[in-house]
């Protein structure tokens, strides 16, 4: 047991908008705090009173079940009251802006707004108009910080470290907020990042962030300690970016045969929901390398940590 825990930097942010703006130390502070909350999740009584009386609103302008459920449960485990607001497309087309909607919800006493929106930068804009803490639960193709944090936590818990590992992000990088947040987080924590997918889905300009870009999965897979398989977003029009699912699967699908040529201790992550048979085969998804379910558990711990940390900042007077 750790008799004398290392001092950590105090958390000073009221919002969590993305990993790009966080320092390495801040990311580590979240991961360490999440480790503490992981312990809470192992108890029979999985609840602590820290956020009693606080109100956490899930403000989702885009469909999501997993992230919303995970945030709700995380808030409940901290004894906060939670409320979901699935933004009806109707109220927004009636001329009410999302800022109006958010202000309305804040007037109901929300202390934390967990925001999912299809447009990049929307949570950032919101922070200029509300007093509550804002947590970005995914803004378009920009960032999805808690997903990347749970990926980082999963890697750290299962491999003991992140620094020095080679992590491959495979698939639709261009449209992926998960990819962007992962890139920032992994690079800050000292991992090597390889982006892999067809050129139409992997913008080469991302090399400027310090990643390696490859279009050949078979070439880069053996180099990877971790592979994070990003989802092909069929809700977007992908016809223009690759000719067929069959061809995509042939080139980038994670099959058992491919995994056999990878490192024996390869760790396989997928942010989900996955398309079995497109990004990876069922046997790989359920196989020994897969940490997909650990990710879900760690997601709770990460979201508890983030809710706890942002709630610790004094809010402006209303």
């Amino acid at each position, binding site marked *: *047991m*750790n*008799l*004398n*825990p290392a*001092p*950590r930097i*105090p*958390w*000073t942010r009221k919002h969590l908008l993305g990993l790009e703006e966080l320092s390495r130390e801040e990311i580590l*502070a979240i991961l*360490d*705090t999440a*480790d*503490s*909350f992981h*312990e*809470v999740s192992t*108890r*029979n*009584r999985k*609840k*602590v*009173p*820290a956020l009693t009386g606080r109100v956490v609103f899930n403000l989702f302008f885009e469909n999501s079940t997993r992230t919303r459920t995970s945030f709700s449960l995380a808030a409940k485990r*901290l004894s906060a009251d939670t409320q979901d607001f699935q933004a009806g497309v109707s109220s927004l087309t009636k001329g009410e802006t999302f800022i109006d909607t958010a202000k309305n919800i804040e007037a109901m006493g929300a202390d934390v707004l967990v925001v999912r929106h299809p447009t990049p930068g929307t949570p950032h804009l919101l922070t200029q108009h509300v007093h509550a803490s804002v947590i970005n639960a995914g803004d378009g193709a920009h960032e999805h910080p808690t997903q990347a944090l749970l990926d980082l936590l999963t890697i750290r818990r299962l491999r003991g470290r992140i620094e020095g590992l080679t992590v491959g992000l495979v698939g639709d990088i261009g449209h992926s907020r998960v990819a962007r947040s992962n890139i920032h987080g992994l690079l800050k924590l000292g991992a090597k990042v390889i982006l892999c997918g067809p050129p139409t889905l992997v913008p080469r300009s991302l090399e400027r962030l310090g990643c390696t870009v490859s279009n050949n999965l078979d070439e880069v897979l053996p180099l990877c300690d971790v592979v994070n398989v990003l989802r092909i977003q069929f809700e977007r029009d992908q016809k223009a970016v690759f000719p067929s699912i069959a061809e995509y699967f042939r080139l980038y699908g994670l099959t058992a045969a491919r995994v056999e040529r990878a490192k024996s201790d390869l760790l396989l992550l997928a942010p989900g929901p996955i398309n079995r048979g497109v990004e990876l085969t069922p046997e790989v998804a359920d196989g020994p390398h897969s940490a997909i379910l650990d990710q879900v558990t760690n997601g709770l711990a990460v979201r508890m*940590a983030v809710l*706890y*940390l942002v*709630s*610790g*900042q*004094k809010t402006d007077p209303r």
Partner: protein
Amino acid sequence: MPRSDTPLLDADGVDQALTSMAVRLRAAMLPGVTLVMVGVRTRGVPLARRLATILTRQTGETIPVGAVDITLYRDDLDRAARWPVLHGTEIPFDIDGADVVLVDDVLFTGRTIRAAINSLCDLGRPARIRLATLVDRGHRELPIQPDVVGLLVATTRDEHVRVRLHEIDGVDEVLK
């Protein structure tokens, strides 16, 4: 309030106090019930470890030691300008039905102990919880009393009592 730093215990004094606390803990053990130690973070943890070592030396039995972080159970979170950094509860054993000794460095208002007891009760249902503190300086705000104390000190409310331990501070001493 100037810190006069009057020494109350030196390293030997701390040793003697802990030894005498261990003797008293042992005298009131429940027969047939597992004895475990839980230190309150931060300085309660090395104290719990030391008491366990002394008792093991005396009884030959290994005594499990855990750490409880009371942050999430504090009643003054909303008053703090900035919330404390969380270090986590680490109790890698079952406390259901155990004879728990809760260990802390200084007993003052009793609010920390209240939070620690709540925290323990969320982890299981111990047979008994006893409280052992190195120093009791009075001024309770809750009906909480220690079972075993190393040193009773009369203080005014605004005085500071500081416990320094070599595991953390490099030296063993108690100062007022």
